[in-house]
């Protein structure tokens, strides 16, 4: 028997400051090839567990054909302070939408 079983394997991340296992964000690809969508998050000590937990929590009723799990810490998110500079300038520039172009006859509009 190995004597070093008390040493954590390299794959096991340390628990976070709140005492919980590390958090992972879960993205599911719905059937028929639709784009991945954020489904929620799970706690897990490594990627394989995160994948299994994501499957068990979010994909057990046939919701997905593919799963991504990403360490939450790997995600860089915009902040509430970014809302103004990031998104407001788009509000008064409707010409950035393509509705101003007339659709040639013969092109099916979806």
């Amino acid at each position: 028997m190995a004597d070093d079983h008390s040493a954590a394997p390299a794959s096991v991340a340390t628990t976070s400051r709140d005492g919980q296992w590390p958090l992972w964000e879960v993205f599911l690809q719905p059937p028929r090839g639709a784009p991945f969508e954020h489904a929620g998050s799970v706690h897990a000590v490594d990627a394989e567990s995160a994948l299994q937990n994501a499957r068990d929590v979010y994909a057990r009723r046939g919701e997905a054909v593919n799963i991504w799990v990403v360490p939450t810490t790997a995600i860089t998110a915009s902040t509430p302070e970014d809302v103004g500079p990031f998104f407001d300038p788009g509000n008064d520039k409707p010409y950035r939408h393509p509705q101003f172009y007339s659709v040639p006859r013969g092109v099916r509009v979806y």
Partner: protein
Amino acid sequence: MPRPAASSVGRPIAVTASDSTTRSALVQFLLRLGDDRLVLGHRLSEWCGHGPILEEDIALANIALDLVGQAALLLDLAGATEDAGRDGDALAYLREAIDYRNVLLVELPKGDFAFTVVRQFLFSVAAYYQLEGIARSTQTDLAGIAAKALKETRYHVRHAGEWVIKLGDGTDESHARTQSALDGLWRYTGEMFQTDAVDAALVGAGLVPDLTTVEPRWLAQVTDVIERATLTIPAAGYMQRGGRSGRHTEHLGIMLAEMQILQRSYPGAKW
């Protein structure tokens, strides 16, 4: 009992060998397969609301539902093959412990989390290799159930195997608990591969795989995971048996009392 797929009751059963010996052997075999899953599924369901973390709580309940679903299909087929007016529900809820045919391994109380995952791993690996053979059965209803169960079982092996490695190769306490679970469970594993006249009658007819070919494959995979978990396979010794002939531990009767109380108190209750 939940019905994940169409019940086989009422459909003609294509028992390839129609002689009564083969038919009654097939009923016994289906009861063994179905009871193993019903009892283990119930034991797992006892974790519902008590799992170590939310995600694992749901995972255990998922596996429990898979097993109870497999049991529903197998016991319905047993009832239809027996052709004595009993369906899967009657077999599940109206038999006494002495009529149950599950191995002793699955009826032991759920123990701690290490005990639960080690048992699940030992059982699921055996189930996987056995189902692989049954999926090629000449009895097409049985082969269909096995093919469905095989996919579920593959995940059970993966999930439980990961936990065995994590707990065995984890902290001092998780290592000690996992080794202790393995030591306590090992003597109950031999019964999964025990064969008798029931198996002989069905193996000869091409209905089920020979369990003696399952055991070495089981041992190879179990040994691999146990070693990666830095655990030690217990020394070969006396193997417990009795479940296949209805001689159970005292734990099964208590479990069935809880599982069956609704049907026993309100016969035929529906909701």
